[in-house]
C-alpha cells in the first residue's frame, strides 16, 4: 500500500485578547500562512503552498490550529510560520503569532498529543485556583463545554482521512 504522506503541524494561536480568537476562521488562517510563505519563500513557496495545504482543524475557543503540509516540503513551509504577525479576518487584523506544539504524521497522533497537552495544562492550572469556587467553576466549564461535539468532529474527520488514505 502506498499513500500520500503529509505532516500535520499542531499550532496554537497566541493572542493578547482571547476574545478575538472567536473571529478566526480557517480561511483566514490559511490566507495568513500563504501570505507568510509567499513573503519568505517567494513564488516557489507560494506554489508549494497550493499543493495539499489546508487548515484541517481550528478551535476558535482554544486557538488550536491543525495545518496539513505535504511531507516533502513541510520544513520549508514550517520555516515561514514564525513570520506570521497577524491574521486578517472580516476586515480587522488580529495581532497574533503561531506557536507550533507538535508535528505529527497523522491526525490521530496530533489528537493524542493535544489531549495529553491539555491534560497537562489543566493539571498546571488547577492548583493555581485560589478557592473552591473557582475550582468548581473550572470543573463545570469543562463538563458543560461542547468538547464532546468538537471531539466527534475531529474523530469524524480523521476516519474520513483514513478511509481516503487506504
Amino acid at each position: 500500500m502506498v499513500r500520500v504522506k503529509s505532516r500535520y503541524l499542531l499550532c496554537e494561536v497566541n493572542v493578547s485578547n482571547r476574545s478575538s480568537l472567536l473571529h478566526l476562521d480557517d480561511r483566514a488562517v490559511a490566507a495568513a500562512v500563504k501570505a507568510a510563505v509567499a513573503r519568505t519563500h517567494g513564488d516557489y513557496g507560494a506554489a508549494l503552498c497550493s499543493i495539499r495545504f489546508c487548515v484541517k482543524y481550528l478551535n476558535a475557543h482554544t486557538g488550536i490550529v491543525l495545518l496539513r503540509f505535504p511531507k516533502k516540503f513541510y520544513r520549508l513551509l514550517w520555516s515561514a510560520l514564525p513570520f506570521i504577525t497577524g491574521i486578517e479576518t472580516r476586515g480587522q487584523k488580529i495581532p497574533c503569532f503561531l506557536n507550533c506544539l507538535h508535528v505529527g504524521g497523522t491526525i490521530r497522533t496530533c489528537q493524542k498529543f493535544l489531549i495529553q497537552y491539555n491534560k497537562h495544562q489543566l493539571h498546571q492550572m488547577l492548583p493555581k485556583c485560589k478557592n473552591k469556587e473557582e475550582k468548581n467553576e473550572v470543573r463545570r466549564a469543562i463538563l458543560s463545554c461542547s468538547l464532546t461535539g468538537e471531539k466527534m468532529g475531529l474523530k469524524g474527520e480523521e476516519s474520513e482521512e483514513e478511509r481516503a488514505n487506504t
Partner: protein
Amino acid sequence: MPFPSFRKALWWSGPVAPAGRSWLLFYGGIRRMNGAKKSHESDYQRVVLKNSSPYHYMKVSLELEDESTKVSAVELKHFIITGLKSLFGEVGAALDFDVLKYSEDTRTAFLRVPSRGLVNLWSSLTLLGSYQSQACAFRVLQVSSFLLPLTGNSRELLLD
C-alpha cells in the same frame, strides 16, 4: 563594493609578507617552509574529490530588446537579486552570490554562487523576463564547478 566576499576567498593573494604569515598560521607550524626535504621515493599522493566544490561559476549574458541600454555591474546584481526575491522570497534573496567580472559592452558576467544555491540562481535567471519594462533574457553560456573553464570555452573558437 560589487565584489564583497571575493577577497575573503583569496585570502592568500595579499601582499607577500602578510600572506606568508597567514600561510604559516594556517599550517600551525606543522611543517616549516623550506624545511626538511621530502624523500622522493615514498611520496605519491592521489586524492579524488567528489562534489567538493564549494562554489559554482556561471557565465551569463543579459540580452535586452534595446541594445543601447546601459546596465552597470551594481544594477545587474540588483536585478538578479530582484529575480531571486520574486521566485524564492526573502530567504532566496539572501543567497550570497558574487559578480566576479562584468563587461558593460557585452553585458556578460561571471557569477560565483555557493553550490547549494546554483539551481536557485539558475532558475531565477531563467524566469527574469523584463528589465525596466523592456523584454530581456539571460543566456547561460557556461556553468562549471571551477573558474578556470570559463576562460577556455571551446565553443568560442572561431576560425573564419
